[in-house]
């Protein structure tokens, strides 16, 4: 009865294998590496940089373990820190001909030392949290009210233009918080306007109220639209932050949305908060100017003349120069949105759709009317340096504030351009509401302390279990070890971030997981005490203990889920590990330890005793035919224990294998 079918053993073996495989990358440690990322918002790093870097390294006589493109940067792993520095210098020299204006950021970094075949299996090491690695953590609050106010402001502007174009007479348009208020003298005009607005601005809810002698039309964003504005604002802020943080050349920056209106920024290895804050808080500006296509300018482009007075030379993204006037037509403030999409007139052609606010739209209409067939340039200024994002030709007068840029663009390029145009500014202001820096030595110290806690605790439990329950204790310890293995493997698979609270949760989970095995072992002993045969005792022991184990794990899980649902950051890390640990412990302590027991005892038909330590039986209870070997541990029982019968050692049938 104590035999598992082969498929159960297969599952156990598989779990063991997967556990080992995914735990393995964590044991390799980290190797020095060089990371190349984009230094400019207009430059995008992609896989095409890999051969270039490989060539550069080969020319410098360096042999990297590998060079690969991953998540917006190219990383090369090297054997030693010496080679790493040499490689950094060589790459920096090759990629940045002008060190004063670097296009690429070349930074020293660490990469996992785990072999390629493991990485190919997506077996990656856990990511170390800031408290273990050192670095800075910011929690930023996005001012959503400002985003809505900004939206209302631009709506008010659009409204002014719209009503003028349609010749609807109003006595004033004002913004009141997130609302837009339009006043009319006559109710008939109001009704006309309301009808128009319901059609043109489907995102808004309009309500009419009489206001003294006048009539008032109040518009507010529909809840769905307001949410969309807020979502858009936080997404854009995250994109902007990404662009800016890349410049720090940080190994693996974490920029994540937390809740509906917060952004977490984590920069490992950075302790210099002032610089980090400076970069995060910087604003890039967007400018629209006209291209100078005069004869002098053309000559200047060919390099045979000076740049004409009142103009400047800039480089386009493909590297070709363009001469633009100094006069700024529009700035990024007038641009409310930029989205990639498809051209309206030629199907299938990629395009970028810009939306301008009312003031911008008016200026843009006038400028485009006067400059048909000329080029204009959209420039992005960062750190005082400008770069041309795109320079389209004006084909016709553009009114209404909806601009489409198309032609010679792939979909990916359109998406990039739209991103860059939006990246110019934050959609809503942000404020740092939480900041944490952890020094690198403290991080290393925390790792050592965390591992020591788990290690010594595990050892103490193992020694006790093996001493108290003998072979069953060994099984329990092995089950606990598998639990640890599975827990680490699952955390690695999920690519969870390991923090000190996470390690504490691992320790606590192991301490609690042994509960299941204690329950089982005690039950088996009890069955033996009651006179059951060893095989029957194992069977009923496991079966009866299971209901209790399930109950107790569910109550623990309820607490874990509460922490997961209501905790943030720190507590959440603890809760994730805790909940996962409860799941793995159910598997390892019940199924795996039973598997071991079955493997050891299951085949023996005439099993006389099991090694589960001494099973003491109250005097007078029926003794069963088990061998009466003196238990070495019997002498360790507390002397004079009140309930111990006088002739205990002699009358104690102990079970021993």
């Amino acid at each position, binding site marked *: 009865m104590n035999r598992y079918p082969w498929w159960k053993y297969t599952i156990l073996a598989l779990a063991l294998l997967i556990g080992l495989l995914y735990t393995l990358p964590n044991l390799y440690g980290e190797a020095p590496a060089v990371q190349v990322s984009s230094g400019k918002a207009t430059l995008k790093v992609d896989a095409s940089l890999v051969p270039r870097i490989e060539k550069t390294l080969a020319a410098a006589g360096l042999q990297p373990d590998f060079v690969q493109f991953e998540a917006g940067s190219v990383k090369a792993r090297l054997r030693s820190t010496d080679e790493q520095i040499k490689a950094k210098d060589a790459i920096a020299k090759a990629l940045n001909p002008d060190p004063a204006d670097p296009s690429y950021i070349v930074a020293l970094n660490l990469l996992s030392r785990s072999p390629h075949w493991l990485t190919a299996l997506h077996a990656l090491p856990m990511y170390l949290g800031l408290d273990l690695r050192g670095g800075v953590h910011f929690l930023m609050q996005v001012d959503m009210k400002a985003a809505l106010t900004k939206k209302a402001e631009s709506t008010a502007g659009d409204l002014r233009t719209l009503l003028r174009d349609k010749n609807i007479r109003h006595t004033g348009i004002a913004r009141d918080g997130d609302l837009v208020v339009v006043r009319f003298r006559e109710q008939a005009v109001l009704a006309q306007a309301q009808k128009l607005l319901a059609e043109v601005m489907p995102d808004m809810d309009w309500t009419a109220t009489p206001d003294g002698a006048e009539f008032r039309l109040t518009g507010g964003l529909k809840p769905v639209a307001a949410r969309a504005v807020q979502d858009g604002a936080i997404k854009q802020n995250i994109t902007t932050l990404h662009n800016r943080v890349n410049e720090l050349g940080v190994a693996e920056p974490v920029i994540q949305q937390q809740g509906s209106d917060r952004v977490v920024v984590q920069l490992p290895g950075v302790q210099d908060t002032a610089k980090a804050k400076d970069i995060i808080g910087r604003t890039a500006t967007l400018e629209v100017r006209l291209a100078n296509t005069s004869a002098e300018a053309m000559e200047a482009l060919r390099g045979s003349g000076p740049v004409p007075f009142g103009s400047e030379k800039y480089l386009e993204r493909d590297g070709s120069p363009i001469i633009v006037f100094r006069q700024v037509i529009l700035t990024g403030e007038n641009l409310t949105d930029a989205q990639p999409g498809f051209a309206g007139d030629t199907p299938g052609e990629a395009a970028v759709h810009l939306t301008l606010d009312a003031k911008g739209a008016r200026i843009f209409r006038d400028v485009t009317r006067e400059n048909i067939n000329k080029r204009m340039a959209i420039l992005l200024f960062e750190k005082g340096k400008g770069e041309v994002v795109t320079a389209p030709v004006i084909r016709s007068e553009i009114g209404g504030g909806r601009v489409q840029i198309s032609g010679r663009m792939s979909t990916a390029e359109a998406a990039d351009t739209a991103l860059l145009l939006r990246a110019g500014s934050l959609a809503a202001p942000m404020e740092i509401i939480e900041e944490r820096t952890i020094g690198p030595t403290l991080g290393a110290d925390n790792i050592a*302390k965390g591992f020591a806690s788990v290690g010594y605790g595990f050892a103490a439990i193992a020694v006790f279990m093996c001493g108290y329950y003998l072979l069953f204790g060994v099984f329990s310890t092995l089950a606990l070890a598998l639990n640890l293995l599975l827990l680490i493997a699952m955390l690695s698979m999920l690519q969870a971030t390991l923090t000190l609270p996470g390690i504490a949760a691992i320790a606590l989970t192991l301490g609690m997981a042994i509960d299941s095995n204690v329950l089982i072992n005690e039950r088996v002993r009890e069955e033996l005490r009651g006179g059951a045969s060893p095989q029957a005792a194992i069977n009923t022991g496991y079966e009866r203990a299971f209901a209790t184990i399930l109950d107790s794990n569910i109550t623990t899980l309820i607490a874990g889920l509460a922490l997961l649902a209501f905790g943030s950051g720190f507590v959440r890390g603890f809760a994730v590990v805790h909940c996962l640990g409860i799941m793995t412990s159910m598997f390892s302590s019940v199924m795996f330890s039973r598997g071991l027991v079955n493997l050891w005892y299951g085949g023996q038909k005439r099993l006389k005793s099991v090694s589960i330590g001494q099973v003491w039986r109250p005097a007078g209870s029926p003794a069963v035919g088990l061998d009466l070997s003196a238990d070495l541990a019997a002498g360790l029982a507390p002397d004079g224990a009140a309930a111990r019968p006088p002739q205990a050692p002699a009358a104690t049938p102990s079970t021993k294998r």
Partner: protein
Amino acid sequence: MEFFRISRDIPFMRHALIFNIFSFVTFALAVFFLLTRGLHLSIEFTGGTVLEVEYTQTANLEKTRAAVDKLGFGEVQVQNFGSSHDVLVRLPVRANIKQADVAPLVFGTLCAAEGGTVAIKAYTSPQGEQVSRPSCSTPAGVEPLKLSRTEFVGPAVGDELASDGAKALAFVVLGIMAYLAIRFEWKFSVAAIIANLHDVIIILGFFAFFQWEFSLAVLAAVLAVLGYSVNESVVIFDRIREGFRKFRKLDTPQVIDHAITSTISRTVITHGSTQMMVLSMLLFGGPTLHYFAVALTIGILFGIYSSVFVAAAIAMWLGVKREDLVKAGGKEQDPNDPNAGAVV
């Protein structure tokens, strides 16, 4: 080896009243200290700034305190953290200064007090990672103190954490009660939750009495303990139900006594094992995990006590009877009615 050799059921329930009085007194004391002293909440809840500084020499707390006091932050705490070289400075939220600027300002002041100036130091770690950090150095080229850690939490975040913590506690309490009510019976669910909330209040009472810092980690520990020690009650309740089925001649206190006696070994061994792990954290985990481990230790010790002596006793006072758990049909009877027993 076998620690527990108990031949007869120990009559725990005969002393139930004493245990309950003891519990009530500790509970009342805990509430008293919570009300009079209050919890020493960490900046995670209150908002504020914390700096951890490591001095090369043994830190002179008086000097550090004097230097920070000059900045006029009001109530500032300066204390050792872990070792005599490490100092923790805790500053409250002030309206007149931007929170994000507090940490650099204080570090600058501490550095100046040691005769040094703060500059950004960029270097490559021996592993090959670029690091840049503000460092303090004297003209002699010594680094008298290092900034180990800073933390700043805005007041809004703190309020939110406190309310989230309360919500989490409520969720755990209701969740466990609902589960036990379905699994067993409402009397058990009420008994278990009273017993375990009593643990929680006592942990909080300890933190209030000793004015230990109550941080998010401690809150996590408290909630974990709550889930964990309910286990204990569940195990005993399981046995009580089994006892009601098996021993039809025993009355309720006898059944409870039997249930507790037969699980006592498991209770002590399990909690002992968990405590070994927690002890290891307490000894080797360093100052960050210190109060987390302390909260767990108190929780585990009182968890044993409360689930053994309190939960079952409350269930008994609430009038748990065989019919509640054993669906045997028959008419309803009052177990306290002396004339009813004969019918069973």
